[in-house]
């Protein structure tokens, strides 16, 4: 059995739908990671020892939760969070429900990346801002975020690519998506055509995300 063009045409509507679902799930969870993970990453950084909002309690509590969520295998997180999905989005099934688990995985992942991005900033620049008399909020907004921006965009790219991979497991809760199509048709039914096509789509998608991420990250860097 070779790769049949006719078979591709036949499955085109399915694939378009799956592609849309993948983009939908990755998009939502990326947005949530940005909204919740970024502040968490900032908190992780500024409460660290020797920094301007040093706070051992906050640092270790957030650090512990982040590590805990990150240590749970995604497939298990997906099942574990079914009740949470029901509570938040009113359904335990479909791409929206899967986005809840994807977001839960993306938030701590991205938070750590943000923290690491800030660590790359020269401590002297932060000290100079302190010596000027800037408030913690000003230091976050005018020093940490601009100086870490380029690196954070790289981190967001990394998060997006990880999410594309995680989204393949969304089929467990009926999330759909390209990865799910590859597993159901390509793997379970030994449909080589669909297997190859979906994998190619995924490769192209990941390359595109990386390309865009690199370009944007470079474009915003004024160094």
């Amino acid at each position, binding site marked *: 059995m070779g790769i049949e063009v006719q078979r591709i045409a036949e499955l085109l509507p399915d694939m378009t739908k799956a592609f849309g679902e993948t983009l939908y799930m990755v998009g939502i969870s990326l947005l949530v990671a940005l909204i919740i993970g970024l502040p968490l990453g900032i908190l992780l950084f500024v409460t660290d020892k020797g920094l301007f909002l040093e706070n051992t309690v906050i640092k270790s509590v957030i650090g512990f939760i982040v590590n805990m969520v990150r240590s749970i295998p995604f497939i298990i997180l997906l099942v574990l969070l079914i009740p949470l999905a029901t509570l938040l989005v009113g359904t335990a099934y479909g791409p929206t429900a899967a986005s809840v688990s994807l977001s839960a995985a993306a938030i701590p992942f991205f938070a750590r990346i943000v923290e690491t991005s800030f660590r790359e900033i*020269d401590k002297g620049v932060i*000290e100079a801002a302190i010596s000027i008399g800037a408030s913690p909020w000003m230091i976050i907004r005018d020093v940490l975020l601009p100086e870490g921006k380029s690196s954070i965009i790289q981190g967001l790219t990394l998060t997006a690519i990880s999410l594309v991979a995680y989204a393949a497991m969304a089929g467990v809760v009926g999330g759909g998506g390209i990865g799910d199509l590859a597993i159901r048709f390509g793997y379970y039914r030994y449909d080589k055509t669909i297997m190859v096509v979906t994998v190619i789509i995924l490769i192209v998608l990941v390359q595109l995300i990386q390309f865009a991420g690199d370009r944007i990250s470079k474009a915003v860097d004024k160094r």
Partner: protein
Amino acid sequence: MIQIQKVSKVYQTKDRLVKGVDNVSLEIEKGEIFGIVGYSGAGKSSLLRCLNLLEKPTEGTILIDGINLTELKGKQLRQARLKIGMIFQHFYLISQKTVYENIAFALRAAKTPKQQIDDRVTELLEMVGLSEKRDVYPGQLSGGQKQRVAIARALANNPSVLLCDEATSALDPKTTLSILRLLKKINRELAITIVLITHEMHVVKEICDRMAIMQDGKVIEEGQVYDIFSNPVAELTKEFISSVVSFEVPDTILAQCTGTIVKLLFKGNVAGESVISETIQQFDVHGNFLHGSIEYIQEMPLGTFLMELQGREPDIERAISYMSTRHVHVEVINNGN
């Protein structure tokens, strides 16, 4: 006025406590340029960072214009810092912000109204001579230009004190000189007290009024720059001064000398050269210069000469005592072969 009272800073390393600053007391007058000199690890940087509480002293108090900084926290401390500018060896500008935004950042920290920020930044850029670089990012500036931006930023909120942490150590000699001149101009025109730390003695010689020398966390010598240059006491001080005023004469030359070798020191307005020529005319001695220089410190000349005096011993002795009466400090290095 800055009063540093019995300040100590202790650091905890892996296995022991290190006294970075050890019971230092200093008073720095309003409007003066005060230099703190020492090798790296002497504690000068820690001491400077204690002055705006970037490092909290373990013991002692810091008073600036009568306000006890060591008691301040949070918002009050930030308010106090607005009036203490600081510049650094590596400038530490925000690389992702333009020159304008970097300076405006300091003004926003002081909650300056928006319409005033523009005027003030223009004024500051004019003062540091960088008006045309207003919208450029720091990455496109030279080291000297970056330091000028940092100076503008530090002066944005009209501080009474400017702290300089090795501010010229990353710059080439020519740029160093132009930055030092700018600092001096700021000090004279705006009456800002400047405290600078450096390991380069020529920086102190160039602009400081008074200085302190630090070793192992302690101040070992302190005084007017001119007095310390003309009469250093501690070994370390002499070592630092010899880096600027060197009196190395090759051994082969010294070996050829048959007369008495004397070191002559002229301070201030003593007309050194005429004293020497008078001495040689009056007494039956011959003079032979081995080395000599006149340094200008705070615009006062400090002359140092190394001479070989030849003649009969009593004549030489009389010549030396004559020069001493004429306010020349004479030190006999070698009594002849």
